[in-house]
């Protein structure tokens, strides 16, 4: 019950305070720190005479339930389908949420650490197996959590190589798995002993964590299966990289070797568009088929956890969960960077087509062919967009306001285009035909290029209300992509 409450509170927190958290993270960190310190102090002092309701509320923090719920929000941010509201809500504040959760987690650790770490180091044989394992696990989790949290601060993150950062952050999967095991080690035995509400807790935790594992892997599998979509452009990109390099602008030599390997792999997987759809469908089918698995595991865990069955399976079962979770996380790590394979396509072909139409329309010299064309890319873009636009901080769906005097619908529109070596995403907010804001981000391996270009292009576009500068002289990389993406977003907004 505690965890369910925490989950509801965490969801409410993300929904209500997400924007504020992004804008002013520091007050939240301070608040988390204070709450955390309070929780630790309360645990240390072990005050007895507290009303049950207050105790329950305090438990959210002292027992780490709210922190765990925040971690769940962070986790699920990566598992929800791309383009879903939850993703749009969570992804932009993932870093801030993690830091807040980490502060709150530390409060729980310090509070309980007084008893359990103390025992662990002085009198370990007095601890029962579950507590012992959970305490050791906690130390391992702290070892992961603390550096990851430090690295989540933008100041630190900026100093790190993006790829390295991402790779290190992937140990978070291990952390999630450990978190589940930690919770299970403590609640499962109590559920088996028939302690009130614990079976319910085991169920809720299992649904949230195993469900997460399933959906995260599902996303990864579908993505991996449809990776060949990327092959056409990516393969070309690699081919070029392999052959070349002019000394005035070149990359480390081993870079090319790596790309050779990647290319080889991609070539073998290269396939027509049809096959790729089949691939991605295949992934979907495999995963849908596998959906039974997590449900079965959850049912099994709850069944085994039922107080009637008080005997042996406890440890075995726990081990089974470990087995179910750990290899899954490793399989996830192999995926990760590949975001939005299918969008690659839109960017280079469809986007340019939509641009054509927009211009011909404004010149009122529209030809039938161009007008016909419009239907295809527009639909595809919007479809793709609805499905896939991951990590795009959009809050509102297009609002159909029938105001015939305006060319564009009001609202937020997202689109993407292929940039330097990855996708560039933008969200354009339109109010009465005026672009009021453009936000964006990139999948490119080195966001530096994007940042440079975005800094130039976005203010320019807003200032001039169109993509009026035609080109940039000097080292620009993604600016064309940003412009293309904005253009595509505008096409979506067009009535």
């Amino acid at each position, binding site marked *: 019950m505690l965890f369910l409450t925490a989950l509801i509170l965490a969801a409410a927190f993300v929904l209500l305070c997400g924007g504020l958290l992004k804008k002013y993270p520091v007050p939240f960190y301070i608040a988390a720190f204070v709450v955390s310190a309070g929780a630790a102090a309360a645990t240390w002092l072990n005050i007895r005479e507290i009303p049950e309701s207050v105790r329950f509320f305090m438990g959210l923090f002292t027992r780490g339930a709210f922190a765990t719920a925040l971690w769940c929000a962070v986790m699920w941010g990566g598992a929800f389908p791309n383009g879903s509201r939850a993703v749009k809500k969570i992804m932009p504040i993932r870093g801030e949420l993690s830091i807040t959760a980490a502060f709150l987690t530390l409060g729980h650790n310090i509070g309980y650490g007084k008893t359990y770490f103390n025992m662990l180091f002085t009198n370990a044989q007095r601890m029962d197996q579950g507590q012992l394992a959970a305490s050791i696990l906690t130390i391992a989790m702290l070892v992961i959590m603390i550096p990851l949290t430090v690295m989540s601060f933008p100041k630190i993150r900026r100093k790190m190589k993006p790829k390295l950062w991402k790779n290190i952050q992937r140990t978070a999967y291990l952390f999630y798995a450990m978190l589940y095991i930690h919770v299970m080690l403590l609640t499962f035995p109590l559920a088996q002993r028939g302690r009130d509400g614990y079976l319910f807790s085991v169920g809720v935790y299992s649904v949230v964590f195993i469900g997460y594992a399933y959906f995260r892997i599902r996303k990864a599998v579908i993505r991996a299966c449809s990776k060949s979509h990327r092959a056409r452009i990516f393969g*070309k*990109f690699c081919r*070029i*990289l392999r*052959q*070349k*390099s*002019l*000394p*005035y*602008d*070149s*990359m*480390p*030599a081993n*870079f*090319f070797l790596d790309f050779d390997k990647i290319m080889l792999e991609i070539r073998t997987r290269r396939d027509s568009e049809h096959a790729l759809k089949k691939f991605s469908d295949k992934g979907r089918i495999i995963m849908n088929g596998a959906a039974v698995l997590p449900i079965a595991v959850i049912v099994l865990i709850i069944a085994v956890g039922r107080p009637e069955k008080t005997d042996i399976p406890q440890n075995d079962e726990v081990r089974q969960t470990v087995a179910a979770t750990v290899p899954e996380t490793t399989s996830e790590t192999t995926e990760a960077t590949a975001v939005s394979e299918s969008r690659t396509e839109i*960017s*280079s072909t469809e986007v*340019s087509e939509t*641009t*054509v139409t927009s*211009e*011909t329309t404004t*010149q*009122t*010299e*529209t*030809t*039938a062919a*161009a*007008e*016909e064309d*419009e*239907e295809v890319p527009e639909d595809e873009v919007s479809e793709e967009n609805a499905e896939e636009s991951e990590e795009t901080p959009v809050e509102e769906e297009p609002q159909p306001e029938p105001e015939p005097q305006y060319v564009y619908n009001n609202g937020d529109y997202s689109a993407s285009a*292929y*940039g*330097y*070596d990855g996708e560039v995403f933008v969200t354009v907010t339109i109010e009465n035909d005026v672009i009021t804001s453009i936000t964006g981000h990139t999948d490119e391996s080195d966001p530096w*290029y994007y*940042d*440079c270009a*975005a*800094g*130039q292009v976005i203010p*320019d576009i807003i200032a001039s209300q169109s993509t*009026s*500068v*035609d*080109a*940039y*002289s*000097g*080292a*620009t*990389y*993604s600016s*064309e*992509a940003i412009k*293309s993406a904005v253009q595509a977003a505008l096409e979506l907004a067009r009535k």
Partner: protein
Amino acid sequence: MKRISVVFCLTALLVTGCGKKAPVKGSRDIFAMDTYMNLQAYGDAPEDALEKAETEILRLEKLLSVTDNNSQTYKLNASGGSPTEVDADVSALIRYGIDMGKKTEGSLDITVYPVLREWGFTTGEYSIPSDRRIDELLKNVDYSKIILDENTVTLPVGAEVDFGAVAKGFTSDRVMEIFKENGVSFAIISLGGNVQTMGRKTDGSLWKVAVIDPFDTDKTLGILETADKAVITSGNYERYFTGEDGRNYCHIIDPSTGRPAENGLVSVTIIGDSGLMCDALSTAIFVMGRDKAEEFWRSNDDFEMILVESNGKIVITDGIEDSFENLSKLDLEVIAHES
């Protein structure tokens, strides 16, 4: 609804007799020559032209890369002093490199490659070479020692060439040729920030090319309105590394010292008809520094330039006085031919 509007538009066209067909826009993104390229072409069938341009870009890249073991450039550099037959494009570039070397009195030297490599700009493994090492390498840096007979090139032993300072300009000229041959009437291309335009925009207005502010690459220094010109910028902000001594070293090597050029300029933009010339000059003039650059410009009337000095001043030539809008807070000085 869409169909109705199509029919309506067609009817309107027929009724008004306005049969003029708008040029179709085609656009292509290419990753080549280690940079991101964007080509935009307007014509009857721009896709054909774009396809051919892309093929040519990839061909040139293969030909001109110094790091690709199979490139002609690589083979030439490994020729150990023996005469080597090369592709006409390679010999043309070498010829141009030698001429430009003479013209700029060595500010552009296509044989500076071994020094560039020593600094790590070709591999990303940056290091500051010792004075002795630089002197040693500089002995082989001299464009005038290249012997060129038709398509046969003889490099002195130890000398190596590279086309980093000219390849993109050469390529953008070639793309423009292909566009012209294939019915493209308006175009703007950017090969990693090397911009070249063909004609004007379809509405008859000039192309707006923004020049990046070298002090804050997030910002625009100014906007140049132009047509039928290449606008090519070299800046020390593009590729540099910070040495152990805390100083920044940029990728443009002064062939006379073997060290990153430090002659008071942070960015040089050259505007001219030929992408090749603009590319070569943007590097050469960066190396020259302002005074020499001014002198050079006065004795050549085939280009305009925008210089940004490290002291925070923009210097432009009078030929673009009316077409360049300064968007930065930096002071602007206009230099004229007759002064």
